[in-house]
């Protein structure tokens, strides 16, 4: 089973039923699988911060949303993570591709890429790095943390996940 299909299965297995998506090059294959399967409701968002708001509302109404985004969007969303998700203890899963680290071809990505983990730690958003075959385990660990503590969490998708071709 290819990586994008594995990621898709992991998202489905943990019960995500609404995906708020802003595309990135690294996750285009995954987005294609999501489109082809057409089993999980998806909404294209205009900015990651907007996705935090929609996800919060959908969670309040009983859904299990996740945001699929690029790590640069973390910078666009910090106030919403702090003063919406964390203030009210709303557990949302942020699934983000990690641009701007080893293997990056576009230099402009490096500034955000290199501070991504620092930012996550600074705002106290726990994260799970997915860079190997243990994909589903990390998704399950993130969901357990979210359910136990009513807190949001991040899955950080590393380029090495897709191998040499990415």
């Amino acid at each position, binding site marked *: 089973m290819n990586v994008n299909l594995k990621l898709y299965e992991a998202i489905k297995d943990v019960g995500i039923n*609404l995906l708020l998506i802003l595309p990135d090059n690294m996750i285009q294959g995954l987005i294609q699988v999501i489109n082809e399967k057409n089993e999980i*409701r998806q*909404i*294209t*968002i*205009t*900015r990651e*911060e*907007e*996705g*935090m*708001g*929609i*996800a*919060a*509302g*959908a*969670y*309040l*109404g*009983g*859904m299990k*949303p996740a945001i699929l985004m690029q790590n640069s969007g973390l910078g666009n969303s910090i*106030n*919403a993570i*702090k*003063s*919406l998700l964390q*203030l*009210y*203890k*709303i557990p949302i899963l942020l699934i983000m591709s990690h641009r701007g680290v080893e293997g990056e071809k576009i230099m402009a990505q490096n500034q955000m890429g290199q501070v991504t983990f620092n930012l996550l730690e600074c705002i106290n958003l726990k994260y799970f790095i997915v860079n190997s075959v243990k994909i589903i385990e990390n998704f399950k660990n993130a969901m357990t943390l979210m359910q136990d503590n*009513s807190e949001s969490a991040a899955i950080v998708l590393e380029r090495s996940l897709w191998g040499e071709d990415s």
Partner: protein
Amino acid sequence: MKRYDVLKEIVKTLNHELVVCNLGIPSRELYHLKDRNENFYMLGSMGLTSSIALGLAISQPKRKVYCIDGDGSLLMNLGSLSTIASINPANLTLIVIDNGTYGSTGNQKTHTSGRTNLALIAKGAGFESIIVITNKNDIKAKLGNQGPDCNFILIKTNPGNANVNIIKLDPEKMKERFMQSMYKPLKN
């Protein structure tokens, strides 16, 4: 007509509607006029009122959802209009109280006090149902008139805030009572 007069008219119509209210003095005024379990008061994340309301409308399709936003807040998240118009949830009414100012921070002017027209922006975003209200006697009738499309209701008012206290609810407890209000079956 000021924001407080508009909120007075809105609360007269409320029954089972879920309400998401813009942060700052708008939420304080609503809390003062009619606190209810079905009210979600924003305490931070300025701009995301309409996004939270959209998420609610999607997840609770049988409930009516009112979003009470302001011009300053909506101007922070204009992309939300294109997302909402694209999904077009019939159970969502986006009410924008446009007083042309940042009311909670000292009534500094927003761009809607000048050349910017939020109803035209909503039209460009793809809203089918756009209503502009300038008289408070029209609010009740227009709110009750729900068609097949998501409503965008722009209410033009003068600037000004009521003298009301801060909200003394714990954010987490307020979230819990809001969520529990949805578990009760609807009576009509």
